């Protein structure tokens, strides 16, 4: 508390420099998970073959265990998998392990959001698409994808915000992002002012979340731009 606000002011610009790192650990899993999640969703709404059960098991595991445990398992387990092939990945950056773990986790959640939305769309729309001669790809591109996206967006927004907040726990395996840097500053100032450094980090995370919220609000407007005509 004593002179703490000075620490707040001095650590803020240092932490701001690590916003790009946090955004990197947010955007890379986002892009990969949207693709992977869409694929998982496609498998899970399809035939119940071996692939379906395998993917379902994957989704169940990554939805049923804490993200922190998954990060640890990937961090300690992946080098063990690569070991027999004579590849040593122990020197890889901790961020890579975080991204791999998060992609598995996040794509599971995204796939469920997509699946829920896909099951909610009016299947007549798809038939109508085929009836005017759309190919499967055209039907997906012009009918299924926009409708699913529109329904999944509110869910997706919550997931994305959770993902951004989730990047903060990456520091436990040594990833240096906003929280990782804050942890280092705390370690440098043993025993005092931790609250102020954390407050600085909290404000930065909050501001990034505000931006994400605004982006998603405009996306929601974009995807529901046709609604007005019907209503």
């Amino acid at each position, binding site marked *: 508390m004593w002179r703490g606000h000075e620490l707040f002011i001095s650590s803020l610009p240092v932490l701001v420099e690590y916003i790009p790192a946090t955004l990197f650990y947010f955007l890379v899993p986002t892009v990969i998970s949207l693709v992977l999640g869409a694929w998982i969703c496609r498998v899970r709404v399809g035939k119940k073959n071996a692939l379906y059960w395998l993917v379902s098991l994957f989704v*169940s595991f990554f939805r049923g*265990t*804490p993200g*922190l445990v998954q990060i640890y398992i990937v961090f300690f387990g992946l080098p*063990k998998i690569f070991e027999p092939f004579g590849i040593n990945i122990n020197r890889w950056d901790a961020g890579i392990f975080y991204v791999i773990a998060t992609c598995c986790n996040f794509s599971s959640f995204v796939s469920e959001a997509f699946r829920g939305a896909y099951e909610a769309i009016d299947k007549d729309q798809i038939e109508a698409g085929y009836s005017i001669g759309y190919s499967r790809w055209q039907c997906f591109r012009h009918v299924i994808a926009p409708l699913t996206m529109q329904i999944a967006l509110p869910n997706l927004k919550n997931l994305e915000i959770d993902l951004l907040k989730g990047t903060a726990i990456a520091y436990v395996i040594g990833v240096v992002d906003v*929280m990782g840097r804050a942890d280092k500053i705390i370690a440098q100032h043993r025993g005092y002012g931790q*609250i102020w450094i*954390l*407050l600085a980090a909290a404000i930065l995370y909050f501001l990034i979340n505000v931006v994400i919220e605004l982006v998603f609000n405009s996306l929601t407007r974009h995807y529901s731009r046709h609604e007005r005509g019907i209503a």
Partner: protein
Amino acid sequence: MNLNVKFMISDIPTVLSALPVTLELTFASLFFAILLAVLFGVCILKKIPVLKQFVIGLNTFIKGVPLIVQLLFCYYALPYVLRAFDGVLGYTYDPKHPSYFGFAVVAFAFNYGAYMTDVVVSSYRAVDKGQLEAAYSVGMSTFQAMWRIVIPQAVVISLPNLSNYFMWLLKATSLASVVNVFELLATARASTAVNYAILEGYLVAAGIYWAVCILAEQILKRINKKMNRYQKTVSAV
């Protein structure tokens, strides 16, 4: 890839012995989160000036900040608060044995309380206004109408959302291992200190979390089904 399977099997009872701590943490946090959510919800629903704006602002901020930051914040900040209360009402502050469990509960309660406030507000508003009027029309007092008519319906409406948050909370308690709470994950890590079978310890922890989550999901599904048994007749009319 050579997993120490023998150790994994022998490690299961050790890790399982910490499951009560995780559940305790979950239920304690859930209890205080619901308490806070109802308190916050009343502030918003009754439109109490200043308090309403304060609650909305606080909730917005809490929802925008990572849980781990809040946990660490409570971990570092609450000792100062407790020290300030030293000597009040016979309470003595003991700096050597801080209650890390309690600190974690405070952080979880505020985080999930913020989310559950929305559930409380929306499920109260989802109850048909006519229900309250009908209760008044048969001569119930406000308290009776609330307690017997509105709240039971609001609880049923809020249950699916609450069970969702319960599942999130159950998994989120693993974060408390970072702030010195000896729950399932921290115990799993500590149990591997003997032979450095770190991955095996975490796999055991993951397996137990997975099993508990699946079990909890099934139980919650049952409860939801049971609670909804009155809803069906209404919608059938």
